């Protein structure tokens, strides 16, 4: 089932970006800068990976760059109290401009920049296990950043639900004035959440360029927005975003394959993932609605 294997690869960047976005979302901020932060991570990681020849340093410095821009975003939003939606738009605009201007200054091109010397993302390959249907596709034969995503997901779940930090993050989102009245600084939690989103978006971005050993302007192509959708679709829980990003990745993967055998205009097929997802989402809310009604009815008896 290559559809599934590819779905897992496709969902990985959404998943990573959504994990960081989950933190900002829980602190009560709609973080639309995910896209821009990913783009910064994508650019910086491949540049640094090729410059240092080290995959680890490339990813690490890519993440750091993304975190730095996230800090700028946080500074403007939290310290200067700019509207977070607009500063998010500004961050995306900045990222799209800055990556290309830097690429031009550094490499003299505003187009595709090839880094043939950049290290390749190693695959975690266990041929025997990969052949297990479905499970093999799900868990084996992916590049290491895919696994980083899964580790981040588990970590995120632990941090959010099992640590004081997570408790405070969630509290901040529900009512920051209460958190403040307890002698905590809600803004510091919001700042940390934004930095976390910078971290995971940097990693998500690095996946996009290190996959190819090349940078293409606008290579994120809207994945940050999809990550945002995934957060809401996943009901703002780690497990939820895992499922939601798989649903999305699967829908995209299917539509990629469907272009080969379906006699439907390509643009329609490109719309598939969105249609599938929105229908799934409405269906889910209907189920939830009727289930709670049923509960109410059972209670009557």
């Amino acid at each position, binding site marked *: 089932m290559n559809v599934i294997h590819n779905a897992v690869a496709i969902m990985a960047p959404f998943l990573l970006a959504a994990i960081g976005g989950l933190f900002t979302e829980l602190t009560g901020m709609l973080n639309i800068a995910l896209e821009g932060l990913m783009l910064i991570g994508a650019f910086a990681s491949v540049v640094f990976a090729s410059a240092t020849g080290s995959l680890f340093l490339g990813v690490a410095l890519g993440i750091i760059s993304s975190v730095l821009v996230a800090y700028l975003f946080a500074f403007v939003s939290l310290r*200067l109290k700019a509207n977070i939606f607009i500063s998010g*738009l500004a961050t995306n605009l900045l990222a799209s401009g800055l990556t290309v201007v830097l690429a031009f200054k550094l490499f003299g091109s505003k187009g595709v920049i090839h880094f043939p010397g950049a290290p390749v993302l190693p695959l975690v390959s266990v041929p025997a296990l990969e052949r297990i249907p479905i499970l093999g596709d799900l868990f084996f034969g992916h590049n290491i950043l895919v696994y980083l995503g899964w580790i981040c997901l588990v970590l995120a779940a632990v941090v959010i639900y099992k640590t004081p930090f997570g408790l405070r993050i969630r509290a901040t989102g529900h009512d920051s004035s209460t958190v403040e009245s307890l002698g905590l600084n809600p803004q510091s939690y919001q700042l940390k959440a934004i930095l976390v989103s910078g971290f995971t978006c940097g990693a998500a971005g690095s996946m996009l360029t290190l996959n190819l050993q090349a940078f293409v302007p606008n290579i994120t192509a809207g994945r940050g927005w999809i990550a945002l959708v995934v957060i809401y679709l996943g009901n703002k829980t780690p497990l939820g975003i895992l499922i939601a990003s798989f649903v999305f990745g699967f829908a995209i993967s299917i539509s990629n394959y469907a272009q080969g055998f379906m006699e439907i205009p390509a*643009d329609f097929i490109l719309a598939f993932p969105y249609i599938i997802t929105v229908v799934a989402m409405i269906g889910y809310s*209907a189920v939830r609605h009727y289930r709670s009604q049923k509960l109410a009815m059972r209670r009557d008896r």
Partner: protein
Amino acid sequence: MTITLSVAVLLAIVLIFLLSDDPGRTIYYFFAGPFINRYYLGNLLNSAIPLVFAGLGIAVAFSSSAFNLGGEGQVYAGALVTAAVCLALPDTNGFIGGIAAVLAGVITGAVLAGISGYFKMKWNTDLLISSFLISAAVVLIVNFLITGPLDDPASSLLATPKIAEQYRLLRIFKPSKLNISIVFSIVAAIAVYTFMYHTHRGYEMRICGLNPDFARYGGVNVNTYLVLPMILSGALHGLGGGLAVTGTHYMALKEFTFGVGWNGIAVALIAKNHPLGVIPAALFFAYLDAGAKAAMLHSDVTFEIAAIIQSVIFYLVTAQAIFSFVKYRQRVS
């Protein structure tokens, strides 16, 4: 506001000095460019029109806590349907047909947004995401219609044929594309303002958005107001799209409304969701864009550099702390 803006402009100028080889020229065109001739000025005003409609659409939705993130698709689909109706009625009277066409665009926008509102009401489906996803799908479907069935076989543009002469709105500032739909946009802003602040339904709608518990307690039918703001919002977006066809482009081009939906959100937020504030906010937005265009045309500024400069201004335009910090200082002294 003045202080915030001056800081923003100052930073923008610093950036221009860093990024441009002819900073004097770039600064001149960036800030004065939109005003150096009728053509630029007219286009500046004209490009503010769709932003006003999108901004109004968002202001209506947001001030009622209806999070419409689907403006992009609603404008685009509204435009396409308007163009399609015009093309389907090549010989109808311009007034009647024009109204029918724009109305069709309005209804399209309203329906697209209304779907999200309806499911929110019925099953509590998340508005933010359903509107976003529907819009993303709609954009692709409209792309298909423009490049497929509705494509103009006579031109290599990815666009529908041009609409008939009688549907084209009066240009009022030639040679620019400014047309009488600017009047409509102002009327729309006033109408939305009046509705929201001077009628009981507008009042109920806002109260529902601000505190649904209070609204329910006060005897307001809260369910209605889960759908109504979305419908109004979509209708305004659709209207913006329709008028972009009949006023500016005379056809629907592939992705020609790209970004209006998102910028509409920014406009509404800068205007703090006040319908009348949307007009200056849209003008400000259009001005920044016109300045960037002028600088690109007349100086060595490229897209990317313009984007960086614009981003700095966006960062600061809503920053309150600079302002309140200064205000605090003034009060203390």
